[in-house]
């Protein structure tokens, strides 16, 4: 009996003692709830990349990685709970995949000194690293997205959009309203007429909005949607026979989930892309060998190569490269969140690096700095082929209009700094 008690005590002590050093990446995922169809592939891609690094390379710099998944259901309160529950585990960087959760976490991560990466979502003005020391939104943000869409339309119209009518159909939330100011500024610059049309959550019923579009006959429709709003909008656009090639969604309105329910009606629909599409990259061969074939894939392992899987995979790649940079800067393999922030602030993604990683031309080449946490702000345009059921990239990398966006970022971030008594400065290393 004594022996058994003693062995139980030893086991309890071992369980309570810190685990061996590892690099912890919390994944605030949503595999349940109304946005699960978008959350699952992202979470799978994020987890699979780190599994690949562990299985193939023995982790990063000799230290194994650990993905700490916490289910948020896309619920802001649960997202904050997840943050609080996981930050003590040595979490290196948070990727909440929700603008609502991002806004709640910004003051927390600034206080705790843990980096937050909001890739193509969240608070756009967080691109000003002097105000938001721990928040990064590279490689592109919402305002870049709005500008990229307009630049694409400019290209299609010989550089002149004057007199054209553009409607923005947006999710009636902080997220959906993000591009309005940029589009208004750009409308002043390029002379197009902008109409904004709000769709209430969740967006299951959009008859009024599409009847309005049918009445007003805009030349182009830009969409800022997420979840069921995307599928219904694309179906309604097909119903009113709106020309799909004139319908462009943000990168959160451009996954397979969004177009498949509309069938052939979605053919020609376009969306922004912050990374490449498909699975025709050398790294996916390694993924098959080390992760998929060995049964170590996250989830059902059936999402590989989908748009949102690639996004999660890409986000994990950027996190892993930031770890390598941090290890290089500090000369330590087992890094802290503060070191991770330094790695992220010095991150440089080149085409040569992506090729070396087996991901040639997967994303834009960009460099992060203390001042600029937003990356290059580039994006591509992808178009849906309903027959082949695949997305095709139809443009090269398009630069956003920094002349318009940068002043907006500065104005918004400086207002935030003034409200919160922040003196803009680079973070101490």
């Amino acid at each position: 009996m004594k022996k058994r008690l003693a062995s139980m005590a030893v086991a309890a002590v071992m369980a309570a003692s810190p685990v061996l050093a590892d690099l912890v990446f919390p994944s605030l995922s949503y595999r349940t709830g109304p946005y699960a169809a978008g959350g699952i592939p992202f979470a799978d891609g994020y987890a699979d990349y780190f599994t690949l690094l562990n299985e193939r390379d023995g982790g990063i710099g000799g230290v194994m990685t650990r993905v700490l998944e916490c289910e948020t259901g896309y619920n802001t309160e649960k997202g904050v709970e997840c943050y609080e529950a996981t930050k003590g585990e040595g979490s290196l960087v948070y990727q909440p995949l929700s603008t609502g959760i991002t806004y709640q976490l910004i003051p927390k991560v600034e206080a705790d000194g843990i980096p937050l990466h909001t890739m193509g979502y969240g608070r756009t003005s967080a691109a000003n690293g002097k105000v938001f020391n721990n928040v990064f939104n590279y490689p592109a943000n919402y305002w870049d997205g709005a500008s990229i869409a307009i630049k694409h339309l400019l290209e299609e119209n010989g550089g002149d959009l004057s007199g054209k009518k553009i409607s923005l159909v947006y999710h009636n939330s902080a997220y959906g309203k993000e591009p309005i100011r940029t589009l208004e500024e750009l409308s002043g610059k390029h002379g197009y007429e902008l109409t904004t049309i709000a769709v209430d959550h969740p967006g299951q019923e959009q008859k009024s909005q599409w009847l309005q579009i049918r009445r007003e006959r805009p030349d182009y429709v830009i969409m800022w949607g997420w979840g069921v709003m995307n599928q219904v909008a694309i179906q309604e656009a097909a119903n009113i026979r709106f020309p799909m090639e004139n319908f462009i969604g943000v990168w959160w309105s451009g996954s397979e989930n969004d177009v498949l329910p509309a069938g052939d009606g979605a053919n020609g629909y376009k969306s922004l892309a912050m990374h490449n599409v498909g699975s025709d990259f050398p790294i996916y061969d390694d993924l098959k060998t080390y992760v998929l074939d060995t049964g170590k894939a996250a989830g059902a392992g059936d999402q590989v190569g989908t748009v949102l899987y690639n996004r999660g995979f890409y986000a994990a790649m950027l996190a892993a490269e930031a770890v390598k940079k941090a290890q290089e800067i500090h000369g330590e393999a087992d890094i802290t969140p503060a070191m991770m922030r330094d790695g992220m602030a010095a991150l440089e993604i080149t085409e040569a690096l992506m090729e070396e990683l087996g991901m040639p031309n997967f994303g834009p080449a960009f460099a992060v700095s203390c001042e600029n946490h937003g990356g290059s702000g580039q994006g591509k345009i992808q178009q849906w082929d309903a027959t082949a059921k695949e997305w095709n990239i139809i443009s090269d990398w398009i630069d956003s209009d920094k002349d318009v966006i940068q002043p907006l970022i500065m104005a918004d971030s400086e207002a935030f700094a003034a409200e919160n008594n922040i003196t803009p400065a680079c973070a101490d290393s």
Partner: protein
Amino acid sequence: MTDQFLFGVEVVLNGLMAGVLYALVALGFVLIFKASGIFNYAQGVMALFAALTLVGIMEGQVPFAHLINAIFGTDVHYFGWNVPALAAILLTMILMVFFAWAVNHFVMRHLVNQEPIILFMATIGLAYFLEGVGDLMWGSEIKKLDVGLPQGASIWVEENTAFLGSDNFFGFFIDKLDMVAALVAAVLVIALVAFAQYTKQGRAMRAVADDHQAALSVGISLNFIWVLVWSLAGFVALVAGIMWGAKSGVQFSLSLIALKALPVLMLGGFTSIPGAIVGGLIIGVGEKLFEFTIGPMIGGATENWFAYVLALLFLVFRPQGLFGEKIIERV
């Protein structure tokens, strides 16, 4: 006629069609409330579950595939066959009947004589349970539902009404799916009313709705009636799931269509089948007209909240709803 007037007429027509779709969801609530006094919070999730099951059967998906694969290390997802839509609908209906039996056997019969709030809480639990089972059984990805229903604008209507206005009027837009939904809803209401009025089971159902104890005393089986009512609600959920699922694909958000049914119920009354239809039509037309006329002045996206405002306005004058039974309590 001016174009603006014609656009208004188009909005009313589409409001009527949208109202029918809301009413389809509301009908399920009414059936159960009428027979058992239970406000079934799970009705929206039942529509989701029924639609998920229908697509799963049609595509030959292996139910609980992820669970099976995780436990046994297998890699099965599909049986390799497709089931025709009609057969799949029948099989789904059989499952919904089984679900009705299970709800009654494992939940409701243990709660006989409990307060209505307890029964309501039980249906909240049921909704979350069914949501989880649906995910586990068929997966969370968005599925395309194609049972052969027509979809898109009716070109015939467009072409034959375009002459009414100027060149800026393109004819009335009516979605063919909405027309089918209106037809289905009409048939459904007639069938349900006829069932309740002219069949033995229907009369028994009404007797149970009036007084459980009295119905029991004349030999009506409460268990049978409740299974019957939950089965009918399951059938209505399946129809609603098909109509809404054809628009947006079958996905979790289908369960949220219940939110659209609440103002319809407040307006039409919780106990009237025709009330659900009339309530749906009033809500559909009211919210669409408000969005068309006032919406642009106040930033749009008014439909969700305006439906409730409209229902509340009616409640001020008729607390029991348009067709609901007046509750008189003697003291």
